[in-house]
């Protein structure tokens, strides 16, 4: 049996009267890259936010490595050290240099050794093509560079899984590639990830499994080749059509 990193059972999420996720069950195994796609507003971001306890849930359960993710509980800070999250808007801390942004959690939360953190910071920055940017402030970086720094900030805590929410959506087109390349590289090296994206070619290339979310449920699930070339459900076909025209 493969090791389950994330296990969501019968998740129910609503904002007021507005039901977003209904009785949703998914799991992600170690080393797996799952791409979550679906129409705008279907609840993809909300689902990711439920996974690391940024949103309260109204029913069901979210487990990380068998431990419950409980919104608002003290245990969350421990759980979150095992879940990396990268947002569309990078959200680097503007008053800290790139290196300080990256080192904050390992030093203050994980209480790791300063020297070791410094070394790993430089190594990771090099890996994403940002050597020499350690001492730059975020406002001195391009969008693509900021997003790569944000990826490093989540990598350095050595999470069991990284959640990526449309990390290229705010970027100029010429910067999308440099960021996607980093994610593809992570996928190749076995990083467990759950990715929300509107880049279909990227989804196809990076995913081990596609989840298609619509109307609050997983409407279709499958290997990328099957999903993109021969979708089984009408809703998935409709959804993919909107993309083939724009390609």
């Amino acid at each position, binding site marked *: 049996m493969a090791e389950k990193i994330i296990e969501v059972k019968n998740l129910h999420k609503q904002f007021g009267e507005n039901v977003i996720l209904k009785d949703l069950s998914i799991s992600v195994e170690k080393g797996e890259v799952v791409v979550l796609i679906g129409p705008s507003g279907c609840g993809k971001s909300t689902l990711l936010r439920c996974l*690391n306890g*940024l949103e309260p849930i109204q029913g069901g359960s979210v487990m990380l490595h068998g431990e419950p993710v409980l919104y608002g509980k003290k245990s969350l800070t421990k759980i979150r*050290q095992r879940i990396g999250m990268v947002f569309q808007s990078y959200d680097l*801390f503007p*008053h800290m240099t790139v290196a300080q942004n990256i080192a*904050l*959690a390992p030093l*203050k939360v994980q209480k790791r050794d300063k020297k070791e953190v410094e070394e790993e910071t430089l190594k990771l920055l090099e890996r994403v093509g940002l050597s020499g940017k350690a001492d730059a402030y975020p406002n001195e970086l391009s969008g693509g560079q900021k997003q790569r720094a944000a990826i490093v900030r989540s990598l350095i*805590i050595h999470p069991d899984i990284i959640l990526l929410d449309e990390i290229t959506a705010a970027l100029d087109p010429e910067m999308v590639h440099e960021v996607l390349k980093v994610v593809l590289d992570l996928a190749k090296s076995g990083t467990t990830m759950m990715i929300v994206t509107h880049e279909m070619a990227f989804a196809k290339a990076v995913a081990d499994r596609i989840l298609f979310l619509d109307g609050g449920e997983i409407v279709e699930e499958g290997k990328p080749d099957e999903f993109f070339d021969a979708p089984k459900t009408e809703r998935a076909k409709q959804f993919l059509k909107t993309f083939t025209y724009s390609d």
Partner: protein
Amino acid sequence: MDLAFISQHYPLYVKAAVLTVVIGGIGIVLSAVVGLICALSRYYKIPVLRTITVIYTELSRNTPLIVQLFFLYFGLPKAGIVLSSEACGIIGLTFLGGSYMSESILSGFQSIKKGQIESAESLGLSKAQIMRYVVFPRAAAAAMPAVSANIIFLLKETSVFSAVALADLMYVAKDLIGMYSSTTESLFMLVVAYLIIILPISLLCSVLERRLRRGGA
């Protein structure tokens, strides 16, 4: 203008200026402390404390300092609490300044976007760590212009201290005018004394503002 008069009486102003700076300084530091506590209780919506803060803020902002001082100096003794003039000055200034500081600091906290806090939460930082490393440094920079304005405002407000028999600058000026009808000289020294106190502080505040904004926050 009678220069001899000025050179004879300016030591009185120096003494009064020192008093203004000391009492004003203590009052301002305490205002900042009270303001920070109030701002934190409102930012984190701490029950009870937050309600107290709101009531206090209304009371403080909607009554003049001179009324607050009268209450402390003439009102409290009726209830058996007798405070020195200095204590009245410090408490009065703190009571007034705390609410102004609280508003400025709170709006600094609120200027930090939700995304910043969520990304810090996602990294596993505790509430206290988020305040210390993410919110406070930038909130301080954002609040600094308003805080400096409060500091200058409070220093100027010390001019009503004479109402509770504190020998502050205003008190000395009034005294000299009454005694010698030396209006021109007395007022001249009064203005100069305030300028000497407030200008350097004003400059210091703008330097601090620039310092805090380093890193393009």
